[in-house]
């Protein structure tokens, strides 16, 4: 940020008048500048104060961020190494955060290349996490990005607990729920029932679709969490079976027919591989046949892929915006140098440019981040299995719930021995197994580490 002055004093002269001045481009400020100067808008001044900003003592004429605390000491996890993940890694590298780990289960596809810029044609087929880490480490030698090729569920809670901040660039609701529940489950409470701040790990979650996207800050147990907003992501509705089978009208119905009904009939042993051109071609041709039968226009190979793979259009620009917003939040959370996002930012870029930021309020009875006991009023004649179905198909949208009471185990999904031992309870009625008003503890693979309390009252 220093300006080299030429021997002659710089004047207010118009550069276009007479001989143009020799202007050395003055050095711009940098992240170091921000971190070494106080601010009236530092973290403590915002609506979600995270800490008190203490400007670094005079910065020596070093430009390296390598030793700048707390950035150098921070450990950040990037979940997902795709459209958002590549951008996140770049942004972290350019923000002085050198200890980064990235996890992704996927390999590189050619259709990633229009935006996942750490990958090249020759990388197609390789691990996303490994390629991304290698590229960043090479381009930015101060970085040590560690790659994990695998599912997020394969890592134990202690893995997640080892980070100061977790940034998620996932592309599906289930993974977000699992990650959210796991990290929220790390929070410990003291004797007064208050959350221990040292166990709170912020999650910054980003998502994009076409020209729209969102970024949100989740402070487990303090702000709303992902599960609080589950209602905003209704389960994907597929076409009614009778429409597909009997009264198709749209090309999508013909495609669904070919993939859902015809394929299993033709290939009972083989699951449809959405990445195989042969399999997709088969579906496309069958769909086309059916569409011709019913005089329905519009079946194309591109539409077939879009329907089967549930393709969401994606471009570089939106991913860049959302990811940078996320890392900016990480920067502020770690250094307190400015106000933290409180808590949810929406971005819409297809018509003009719009952004809306608001506080996403906690849900009073969120099963993950509140300790509320939920009450369910049920018929005493309902079977335990029916209760389990309700937990899966109702608001809670659990995956494979297990139930215990204070005194006994009602049903356990795992391990196999316990499942077998409790299986007989599934057909028993609630009246036989419980008292009205009794409290159950529910656990689920979707909401790892979370115990949900349920009070059953008989109607």
């Amino acid at each position, binding site marked *: *940020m*220093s*300006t080299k*002055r030429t021997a002659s004093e710089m004047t*207010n002269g118009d550069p276009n008048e007479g001989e*143009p001045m*020799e*202007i050395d*481009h*003055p*050095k*711009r*400020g*940098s992240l170091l*500048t*921000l971190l070494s*100067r106080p*601010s009236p*808008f530092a973290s403590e001044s915002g609506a979600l104060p995270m800490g008190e900003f203490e400007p670094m003592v*005079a*910065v020596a004429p070093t*430009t*390296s*961020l390598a030793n700048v605390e707390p950035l150098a000491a921070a450990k950040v996890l990037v979940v997902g190494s795709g459209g958002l993940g590549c951008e996140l890694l*770049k*942004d972290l*590298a*350019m*923000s002085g955060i050198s200890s980064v780990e990235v996890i992704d289960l996927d390999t590189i*596809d*050619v*259709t990633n*290349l*229009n*935006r996942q*810029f750490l990958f090249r044609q020759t990388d197609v087929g390789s691990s996303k996490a490994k390629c991304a880490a290698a590229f960043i480490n090479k381009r930015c030698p101060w970085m040590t990005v560690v790659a994990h090729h695998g599912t997020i569920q394969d890592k134990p809670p202690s893995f997640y607990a080892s980070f100061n901040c977790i940034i998620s660039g996932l592309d599906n609701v289930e993974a977000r729920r699992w990650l959210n529940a796991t990290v929220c489950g790390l929070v410990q409470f003291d004797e007064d029932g208050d959350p221990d701040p040292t166990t709170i790990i912020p999650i910054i979650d980003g998502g994009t679709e076409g020209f729209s996207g969102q970024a949100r800050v989740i402070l487990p147990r303090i702000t709303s969490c992902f599960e609080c907003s589950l209602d905003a992501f209704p389960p994907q509705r597929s076409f009614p079976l009778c429409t597909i089978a009997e009264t*198709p*009208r749209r090309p999508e119905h013909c495609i669904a027919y070919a993939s859902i009904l015809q394929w299993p009939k033709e290939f009972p042993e083989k699951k449809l591989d959405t990445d195989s051109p042969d399999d997709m071609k088969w579906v496309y041709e069958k769909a086309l046949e059916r569409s011709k039968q*019913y005089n329905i226009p519009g079946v194309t190979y*591109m539409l077939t*892929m*879009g329907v089967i*793979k549930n393709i*969401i259009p*994606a*471009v*570089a*620009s*939106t991913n*860049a*915006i959302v*990811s*940078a*917003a996320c890392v*900016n939040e990480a920067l502020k959370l770690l250094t307190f140098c400015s106000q933290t996002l409180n808590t949810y930012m929406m971005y819409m870029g*297809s*018509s*003009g*440019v719009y952004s809306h930021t*608001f506080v996403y309020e906690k849900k009073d009875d969120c099963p993950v981040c509140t300790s509320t006991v939920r009450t369910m009023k049920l018929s005493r004649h309902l079977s335990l299995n029916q209760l389990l179905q309700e937990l899966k198909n109702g608001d809670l949208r659990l995956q494979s719930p297990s139930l215990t009471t204070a005194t006994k185990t009602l049903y356990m999904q795992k391990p196999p021995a316990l499942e077998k031992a409790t299986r007989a309870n599934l057909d028993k009625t609630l009246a036989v197994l419980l008292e009205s008003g009794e409290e159950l503890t529910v656990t689920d693979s979707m909401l790892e580490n979370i115990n949900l309390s349920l009070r059953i009252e008989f109607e």
Partner: protein
Amino acid sequence: MATTDKYDRQLRLWGAKGQKALGDTTVLLIRATAAGTETLKNLVLPGVGNIVVVDDAIVTEEDAASNFFVIFDAKQPAKPRAEVAFELLQELNPDVQGSYQHVDSLQRVNYEELLATHSANTNLLVICADMEPALLMEISSKCAAASIAMVQVQSYGMIGLVRTQAPPLAIFDPKPASTTPDLRLVTPFPALVEYCNSIGDLEALADHEHSHVPYPVILYKLSQQYKAEHNDQLPSTYQEKQDFRAYIKDNSRKWDMEVNYHEAQNNAYLAYSEKTVDSSHVESLLQQATASSMSSPTTITLLQALLQFLNAHNGQAPLQGTLPDMTASTATYVHLQQLYHDQAQRDLAELTVYCGTTTVTMTDEDIRGFCANVFDLEIVVMRSLQDEYDATMPQEIVEDLQCATGDPYEIPEQTPLLWYLGLRACYLFHLDRQRYPGMVLVDSSDSSDAADWEQDVDLLQQKIQQVCLDLQLTNCDLIQTTLLAANNRKFALELARYANAEIHTIASVVGGVASQEAVKLITGQYVPLNN
């Protein structure tokens, strides 16, 4: 993989036509700062045809810490930033051609020549990155004079700015997020009337057929019956509309089972309201297009043809022709769909005739695309940067600020317009001192930053006052309580703190927005930012 097309995910947004427009475009980046290279990255990746990077800077170590497309090697002689950035950007996508130009000083470049060179055989779009005000004014004026679109992108500490300046744009492909269907039930075309009549009395239909009558047919027939009983009037008051909804329900046999009647009730409004195109709106668009000599002849021809069509059809627009999915038997749905399609084809053919045999080259796709957007036509005229900085336009800004103060959830200090005014003050500071506030002059003997940068705060605060005065905003409540509040120099302090810092995350956000706007300007799809 299911497809070998790397552009698949973006083709689903702008199609082959949009992709071709990208391929036919050269993007010229002036100053390869982080905001600049991030903007360009998001244009190289989707396959813009050609890039040119012009810069006078030499790579420094600081650059490499915040700019992903700059590498600094202490062991090598320092390289021109244009060269390094160009190579690292082009490497992202083998489809993209280009070149770089290192100049001694950006102040001494002949921009008329530069623009002419790169727009000779191609469409040109200019990106001005992190440019000081004097230079920005010069380049933007030259772009305006040559009818070349330009995007200004700037990152400045924790704030950033994107500004588009383009010749008048015909927004003929806005792709709105949701559209109401064009069912034409109020003024139906003959084939539709014929079909509805051929179905006969709904009450005479067997149960299965009754529950599979497409809802447009239900709505048309019921609205006809309603008219017969109401002096040939369609529902217009709130009560009448509620009554009509109830009427629909009454006409269903098994309300719980007849999904088509639910659909009819949900879409009841289509029975009595229709999308229309206002002739006077089209006339005004035509006036704007003709007045601005920049408009393409295609635009003018299409608008003239549309006016002719509207006149010939009593104000009725060409039919869209698409039918949303609805509960119906396959045969009736397909038949109905065909009717709408055929009528749309007839209207399209008529419009094509009106387009005439002029010297204008227009494809069928152009006309079809225009037809499909006939209800959402706009022409956007963008004020040039020069006009923005010269003119006083208090009313617009004051109204915007008043809106901001009226929003109970808006935190006043976070109102973007205040920061815009602050940035304008920084520009004034720069015009005065040839540097931005907070950039400290350092003695070789004293490396302490200390309070030196704060000396600029007073002058910056004066500039803020000057901007507010020039724009006649000194009486605005929000301004008085924030920027001009006595003893409150928060904005000036914060802006001076930044010293025009290049923060990568901010550069990446504005780079994303700038590139997104560039894509809209290039493809002519979606609705661009104004301005």
